[in-house]
């Protein structure tokens, strides 16, 4: 079985290597918008610390639940992120500050749940994945100006599912005693960040959240 496992994992690496070797023009020092709508959606999520924090917290919390919930959480977050971008574009009056506060609250919730190793059923877990995906998508909507909303949303959703998948893969592998402690400590860090950002959302400050 190990041989088969190794073969499956190697396929995307070989594909990537082959494409890497294909000649292409270097476009150094050009703005981010040049990458197009799809990759702007991917890059937006991967450079948003609050969204990454929430997704990692969700992955850690999910890793303390039954394995059968993993795929449902990933699927829910994927669909929710798609819907969120559409909602954000349609209802632009929702200010970013409100969404920042909402995201900080979500980070705190998944962080606390992970740190306390809270065991729950499917509904709260999927509910948070849904709300987090929608809020994250809506928060990204302001970056869609001049871009294809559909491609941007698709890029963001695939990135959301990928981050959750890799987060869950990593978290599930940390199954030793120290691994479980590391997961809980990581979740408590995410909750701490969420709480402080939440406080910042309700005060005037020169920096940005």
């Amino acid at each position, binding site marked *: 079985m190990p041989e088969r496992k190794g073969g499956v994992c190697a396929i995307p690496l070989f*594909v990537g290597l082959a494409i890497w070797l294909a000649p292409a023009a270097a476009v150094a020092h050009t703005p981010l918008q040049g990458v197009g709508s799809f990759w702007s959606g991917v890059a937006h999520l991967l450079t948003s*610390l609050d969204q990454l924090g929430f997704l990692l917290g969700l992955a850690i919390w999910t890793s303390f639940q039954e394995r059968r919930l993993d795929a449902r959480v990933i699927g829910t977050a994927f669909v929710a992120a798609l819907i969120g971008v559409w909602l954000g574009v349609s209802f632009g009056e929702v200010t970013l500050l409100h969404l920042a506060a909402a995201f900080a609250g979500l980070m705190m919730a998944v962080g606390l749940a992970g740190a306390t190793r809270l065991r729950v059923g499917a509904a709260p877990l999927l509910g948070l994945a849904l709300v987090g995906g929608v809020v994250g998508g809506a928060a990204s909507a302001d970056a869609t100006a001049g871009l294809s909303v559909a491609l941007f949303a698709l890029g963001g959703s695939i990135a959301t599912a990928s981050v959750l*998948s890799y987060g869950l893969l990593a978290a599930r592998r940390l199954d030793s005693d120290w691994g479980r402690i590391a997961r809980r400590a990581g979740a408590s860090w995410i909750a*701490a960040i969420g709480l402080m950002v939440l406080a910042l959302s309700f005060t005037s400050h020169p*920096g940005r959240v």
Partner: protein
Amino acid sequence: MKVIRKAAILGLAALVPATMAAGPALAHSVGNGAAGFTAGFLHPLSGLDHLLAMVSVGIWGAELGAPAIWLLPIAFPLIMAVGGALGVIGVPLPAGELLIALSVVVLGTLVATARRLPITAALAVVGTFAIAHGHAHGVELPMAADALAFTVGFVLATGLLHVAGIIIGVLGRWPNGVIAIRACGGVVALVGCYFVYGYAGA
């Protein structure tokens, strides 16, 4: 597990080719986020009082053993964040700097004497000092260029200092290690006395 692995492979297969396509390089474009993260990460490392207190929490947790070895580092960031939130919204903490200086003295002494307290008492001690340390961070937080990146940086640095303390504390499994750790605790307590003296002098 299979489903996650398949999803991960599909995600990788979708992402890898695109990263290899001729996209723009964003070299030398460090934004506020990077500056905020660096400032936040260096903040606990550049202040000796913070640094010594955080490492001492980890060492003391290792000395106490389970469950303190994992409970203290998990609880500390959460309680520190409460103090940070109080600082951010402008709630004053009387003699906050004195509490921080005292935290170095007390935690150093606890490490030096390998004092065993019940877990609730240990949490109360660490929690009180976590509020003071968090408050100091929180007061400075609104001035950060990117507050979120600053927060991520300093929480990460604080956690890594705890980990460093736990690793040092593991030396206590050897007889010479116990002596070294307790000597370190004594030095930390003495440095803390200097901080308290400085506070009283000011």
